[in-house]
């Protein structure tokens, strides 16, 4: 086993195929660990991790915190809503204050793209990007690929379509990097207004017709419409969006093969997917959540192994 090529996990863009393989092998071991009667290992008992969430999060925050606790790390939590950030403190000041309490690793979610990269240039602790604006969300992409690998055996050669709000989605960008790195074929599908301008330069095809996209793919990753990031209206109405880009059971049943449905959450039931799709056997949404803990344990463990005594 080699080690990760990076000190921080800032984005999939900065890591290699070998890094992904190593993370997945390690996650396999942690998946076994979290299914034991006692789901805890002592590896990170002398590591302190700060979870800095400058933006709201439910599952990512819980998943990271659980992963850290399963590894026996000491955890401190910070959320911007109840902090001095509101009093005008800068990001570096906030983080340096936290680091002076002898913190070894930082897990950060921030509304500004590149916040993690910026921070990595100013502090010594290992940083894990838990989402920076509409830029990257590397652990989500890793757990998505890990879940595809678990269900279909391999990611390489598979046809994956990412459906929905590509423009505002850090999940989409990280997934595109991760899937391409592993040799999958990737299409994006959604309203033209929600497609980034130079998306083809990432080596993906744009498909505006949902049915055609689903007929082509093995896996459909359904994204939420990120209303909170929309300052203008990108489509006429939610109802029209659902008619064009929503997946329901009837649509899935009309395909000549059974495709895998993924969703990074939170789901807007009845908008991008209906409840009967979300709760069907074709959906691996809850597997994604379970795998999220194992993958995050692997990432934290491998990054921590690079922090020498």
């Amino acid at each position, binding site marked *: 086993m080699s080690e990760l090529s990076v000190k921080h996990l800032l984005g999939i863009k900065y890591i290699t195929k070998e890094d992904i393989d190593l993370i997945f092998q390690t996650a396999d071991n942690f998946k076994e*660990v979290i299914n034991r009667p006692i789901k805890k290992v002592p590896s990170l008992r002398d590591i302190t991790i700060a979870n800095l969430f400058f933006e709201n999060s439910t599952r990512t925050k819980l998943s990271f915190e659980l992963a850290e606790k399963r590894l026996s790390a000491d955890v401190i939590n910070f959320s911007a809503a109840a902090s001095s950030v509101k009093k005008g403190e800068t990001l570096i000041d906030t983080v340096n204050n936290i680091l002076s309490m002898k913190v070894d690793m930082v897990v950060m979610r921030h509304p500004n793209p590149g916040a993690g990269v910026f921070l990595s240039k100013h502090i010594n602790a290992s940083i894990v990007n838990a989402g920076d604006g509409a830029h990257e969300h590397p652990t989500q992409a890793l757990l998505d690929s890990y879940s595809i690998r678990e269900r279909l055996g391999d990611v390489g050669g598979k046809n994956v379509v990412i459906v929905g709000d590509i423009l505002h989605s850090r999940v989409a960008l990280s997934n595109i990097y991760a899937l391409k790195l592993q040799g999958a074929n990737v299409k994006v599908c959604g309203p033209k207004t929600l497609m980034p301008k130079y998306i083809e330069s990432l080596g993906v095809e744009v498909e505006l017709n949902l049915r055609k996209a689903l007929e082509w793919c093995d896996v459909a990753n359904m994204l939420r419409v990120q209303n909170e990031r929309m300052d203008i209206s990108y489509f006429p109405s939610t109802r029209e969006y659902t008619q064009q880009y929503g997946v329901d059971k009837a649509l899935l049943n009309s395909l000549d093969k059974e495709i895998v449905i993924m969703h990074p959450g939170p789901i807007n039931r009845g908008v991008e997917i209906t409840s009967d799709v979300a709760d069907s056997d074709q959906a691996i949404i809850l597997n994604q959540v379970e795998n999220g803990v194992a993958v995050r344990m692997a990432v934290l463990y491998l990054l921590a192994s690079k922090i020498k005594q």
Partner: protein
Amino acid sequence: MSQKVLLNATEVHIILNRLACQLIENHEDFTDTVLIGIQPRGIFLAERIKQLLTDTYKIENVELGYLDITFFRDDFRRSEKILAANKTQIDFVVENKKVVFIDDVLYTGRSINAALTAVQSFGRPKEVELLCLIDRRFSRHLPIQPDYRGRQVDAINEEKVKVSWVENEGEDTVYVINK
């Protein structure tokens, strides 16, 4: 680097049979006993012992699992050696069972110390014993001793004891290698 043969194939086979018989002496039909091979090198010895118990001594239902101790090691971040995790597979209940740890070489005792913590993730064993093929005495860092030992050696720290198995290296031999 020089190496000498500590045990040849015949000697290894005699010792394996003796260890199997000693286990039977203490555990009879193995109804309350489970074997756990310590990853990565203990699993070959564990499989051999199980094979002997089943094929030669006709004991049925001997349960064998594999335990990986990587995440329980006490030298994480403290050594240059990169720790590779292996598969843990324990498909039986450990609670209230007599557990026999099986490893090829007992050296500092730190692996077994980690294994003692790791196995508790699967329940509280009634008791835990240790079987090893080679016991490097005078090298212990912890108060851990084997209950069943194949051969005791006085190798110095600069030497390495390597156990080769037919299924892995093509021969059943134990070497002492001068690094």
